[in-house]
């Protein structure tokens, strides 16, 4: 399997008023044309890892890595113009917060059309058709109506799917999906995962799937990285997630409610300082 992305010893630091915040502390992995899951609790650095790869880290942060290469292109050395060209066209990222990432005063359809037209030379009518087709592909009922709605007029799940449609429309080779399905109901969630899955198996896209739903990740991905406090604590095959060894991974699995298992109150994580070492 050819390697799309190589990450070696990635570090993201935020100099803040109260000292240095080390959001990502030496993360290494490589990605082929496969589905790689990143799980971990809130603040463990999942999104910052994805953003660093995309080049979307806030300007005040510093990003360092021994190696950060996409398809042989050294991302850290690449000029800003080249990275911009990669972004959206060859690498896409579904951002975590659709409500914040969509423009509140522009209709959903127009946002998708504009995204398409910045990457490809297509006519207005064709762009509209493709945007509608994309909305339909992400299982939105009545895409023509949703096309003209503004972000506050769609449901949480529809906003999230609009965001997915926007990212898929340029046909990227690598996709970073940051909690892409957290606001979707389970059936639509599976439909969306089905789309991503097809892109991986048929078009050979590389997918990084960031999520805190361990159950979903274990059934959907090929490999899983478990992160805690900016570090990778465990890397395993998705199918083996259920027999994970690390107490943190086990704790995360354990605190999710399960159908048919009554536990009141739910167990919560008891964090140990040595996990972060």
């Amino acid at each position, binding site marked *: 399997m050819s390697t799309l992305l190589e990450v070696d010893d990635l570090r993201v630091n935020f100099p803040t008023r109260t000292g240095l915040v080390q959001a990502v502390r030496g993360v290494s992995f490589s990605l082929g044309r496969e589905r790689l899951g990143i799980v971990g609790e809130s603040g463990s650095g999942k999104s910052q890892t994805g953003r660093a790869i995309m080049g979307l880290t806030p300007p005040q942060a510093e990003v360092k890595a021994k190696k950060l290469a996409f398809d042989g292109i050294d991302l850290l050395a690449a000029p800003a113009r080249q990275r911009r060209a990669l972004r959206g066209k060859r690498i896409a990222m579904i951002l975590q917060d659709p409500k914040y990432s969509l423009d509140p005063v522009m209709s959903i359809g127009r946002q998708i059309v504009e995204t398409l037209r910045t990457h490809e030379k297509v006519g207005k009518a064709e762009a509209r058709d493709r945007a509608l087709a994309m909305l339909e592909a992400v299982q939105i009922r009545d895409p023509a109506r949703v096309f003209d709605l503004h972000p506050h007029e769609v449901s949480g799940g529809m906003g999230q799917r609009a965001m997915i449609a926007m990212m898929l429309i340029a046909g990227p080779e690598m996709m970073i999906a940051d909690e892409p399905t957290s606001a979707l109901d*389970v059936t639509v969630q599976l439909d969306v995962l089905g789309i991503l899955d097809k892109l991986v198996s048929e078009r050979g896209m590389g997918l990084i799937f960031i999520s805190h739903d361990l159950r979903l990740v*274990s059934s959907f991905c090929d490999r899983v990285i478990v992160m805690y406090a900016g570090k990778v604590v465990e890397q395993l095959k998705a199918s083996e997630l259920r027999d994970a060894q690390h107490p943190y991974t086990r704790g995360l699995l354990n605190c999710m*409610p399960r159908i048919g298992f009554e536990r009141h109150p739910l167990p919560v994580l008891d964090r140990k300082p040595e996990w972060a070492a």
Partner: protein
Amino acid sequence: MNAALSIDGLEVVFDRFRALKGVSLEVKSGDSFGLVGESGSGKSTLLKAIAGLVPAASGSIAVNGKTLGTRRDKAFYREVQMVFQDPYGSLHPRQTVDRLLQEPLAIHGFADGEKRIQRALDEVGLGTGFRFRYAHQLSGGQRQRVAIARALILEPSILLLDEPTSALDASVQAEVLNLLEEIRRRRKLTFLMVSHDLAIVTHMCERLMVMQNGEAVENLTASQLIGHRVTKDYTRNLLRASEGFVRTA
């Protein structure tokens, strides 16, 4: 007569689009009632219609036996409060936690504000250390706790919860769910809770309603759902989908 909330034939229309097509439902006082269903099926719209944030085209809503008109009065907001889905969007970016909690007290003219704020923060497990922070100084779970404290400060009897944990990670989700359960027990609250996670709904609720495309599909008890004793295909699909992703190829 102990229905905390009874809704009959509720319709909501947005420019000719029928988001709710005659939904009826009854929640007993002290119960916890779940709403599950397809994305875009009108779950949030149902909660917003109850709260008066979107107008109902027809149908009736009664809270504690009193039928509501089109305008909600102040007394209504002391009975019914809501917690939103997105903890990052539901707190004012320029106000401290203290200011956020003071606002409802000021609107309703409470004199013992100091004590109530103190108590509300304690109740959701945030010490006074958080009282003068801004939203951007809080984590997702802490924000959701503040949102819950804000909803509780007027001492409502009914709490509308719109996916209160879907933006939170598994461990924080467990903390918030435990908190909600404990508060419900202590204050004898009635919950109407939207979630797309069947496991959460069966964990939190005794009864639930499945919705699709603006309509109620079926009404179930949690144990019926757990035992897969469901009658409609859509509900069966939901149950199957909750088991995780299955690769078809």
